[in-house]
């Protein structure tokens, strides 16, 4: 019952869309009816088009955010542990943080070509900072009183790092990863709209060229649903790994 009421607003929105289409509140070309979109969805699903593009986008996002994590997490920890030594590098990072990855696409294509590498670079640029900054914030927010407990038991710096610092920043890193997936995904769609031969962004671009607004909407829905599912998956997996980090948290709470 609670589950039903949870989806009620979404259902009402769908109903509104349907009503508008039936009563002709808007031009069917500008916003096709749910049935038309549903039919296109089925066609694209059954002929494998949707799946192929979805796979392309998802693969890029996973590789890109994975690489962003591999760079952002250790750097965040390092900057957090040695804030003074690292401070001179902050202006450079700040510069790139304020540069939208899409603005760099022309250069990225020039340097890396129009293949996978440039798309993955866009994702890395977009998702590096959420991971890096949240990790950095986590280290800074680590409770010194807990570190002191480690010292009082005579633990080495390495042991304090492993047994106290790392677990205590986990929720922050997790928030960073969730944001990174969202940021990376959005940036990727942008990149695919501009220059790609596959992916959900390309699918939308292709449909736009053919004036198929129904297919555009299928692409948008696929992106939104895939993004939500990814987020829910990350949350589910991490609440398994670290239940203590979620006891106060609403399962559907956004970071």
């Amino acid at each position, binding site marked *: 019952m609670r589950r039903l009421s949870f989806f009620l607003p979404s259902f009402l929105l769908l109903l509104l869309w349907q009503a508008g289409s039936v009563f002709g509140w808007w031009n069917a070309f500008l916003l096709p009816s749910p049935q038309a979109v549903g039919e296109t969805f089925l066609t694209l699903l059954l002929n494998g088009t949707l799946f192929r593009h979805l796979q392309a986008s998802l693969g890029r996002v996973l590789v890109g955010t994975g690489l962003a994590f591999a760079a952002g997490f250790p750097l965040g920890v390092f900057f957090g542990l040695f804030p003074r030594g690292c401070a001179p590098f902050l202006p450079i990072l700040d510069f790139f943080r304020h540069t939208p990855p899409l603005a760099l696409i022309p250069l990225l294509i020039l340097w890396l070509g129009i293949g996978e590498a440039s798309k993955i670079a866009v994702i890395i640029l977009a998702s590096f900072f959420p991971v890096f900054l949240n990790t950095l914030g986590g280290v800074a927010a680590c409770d010194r*009183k*807990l570190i*002191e*407990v*480690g*010292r*009082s*038991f*005579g*633990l080495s710096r390495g*042991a304090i790092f492993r*047994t*106290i610092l790392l*677990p*205590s920043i*986990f929720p922050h890193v997790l928030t960073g990863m969730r944001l990174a997936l969202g940021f990376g995904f959005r940036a990727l769609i942008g990149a695919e709209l501009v220059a790609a031969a596959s992916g959900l962004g390309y699918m939308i671009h292709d449909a736009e060229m053919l004036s198929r607004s129904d297919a555009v909407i299928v692409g948008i829905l696929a992106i939104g649903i895939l993004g939500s599912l990814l987020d829910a998956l990350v949350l589910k997996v991490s609440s398994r790994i*670290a*239940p*203590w*980090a979620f*006891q*106060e948290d609403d399962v559907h709470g956004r970071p």
Partner: protein
Amino acid sequence: MDALDIRNLRKEFLFDGGRFPALKGITLSIPAGMFAVFVGKSGCGKTTLLRLVAGLEEPTEGTVGVRGGGAPLRTGIVFQEPRLFPWLTVEENIAFSYRSMGKRPTEETLSALIESLGLTAFRRAHPSRISGGMAQRASLGRTLLYDPDIILMDEPFSALDYFTRAALRDDLLHLWQERRKTVLFVTHDVDEALCLGQRIHVMDRGEVVRIFDVEDDYPRDIASMSGLKREILDAIGNGTCCGAHHAKEKAAEA
């Protein structure tokens, strides 16, 4: 045999370009197995003394050690707040000193300790799920399992309600009578000092001003100790306190 030997221990905190003398040259020794209490107003230096013994602060001058040198002092501290790790269960928190070395205490030892702390029903709960009193018991257990030569306690019960405090005090006495560890217990509560201490050190403005040896058997009837209580209150005095700890926090902010 003395468990603890403190010689001319001085500690100054620097802040805003000024110096705050938190401890002004303390010399004292505490025999092994004694329950020693340090009582005084907030800012009298009692917490600083404990932190120096724990090795969490470096002395400006003087030494903390075992008489005749020898092996370094193994101390365990119970803080004012439980300071449990939120990502570990009660049981894992208690076994933390083992975990951090990649070892595990024997199931018997761990179970017996958890049982004696009255935490058996909560051993797999996370700290956010238990009460303040239970959390402080777990914190005490964590230090007991570490098995230090000296247990340092920094107003461990002051954040708890009256009834929990009384219950924990009894439990602590019980555990101490079983194990006969040396305990240094810091409090601002004179009744607590009377209830627990074999030797009560009264501190004021960075100095130990009076020492009382209390021979009474446990459990004690505080009501019958009003004469001693009067003396301790007089020794604590009415002098104003500047607050070493606040001074230190200021220094940290600067």
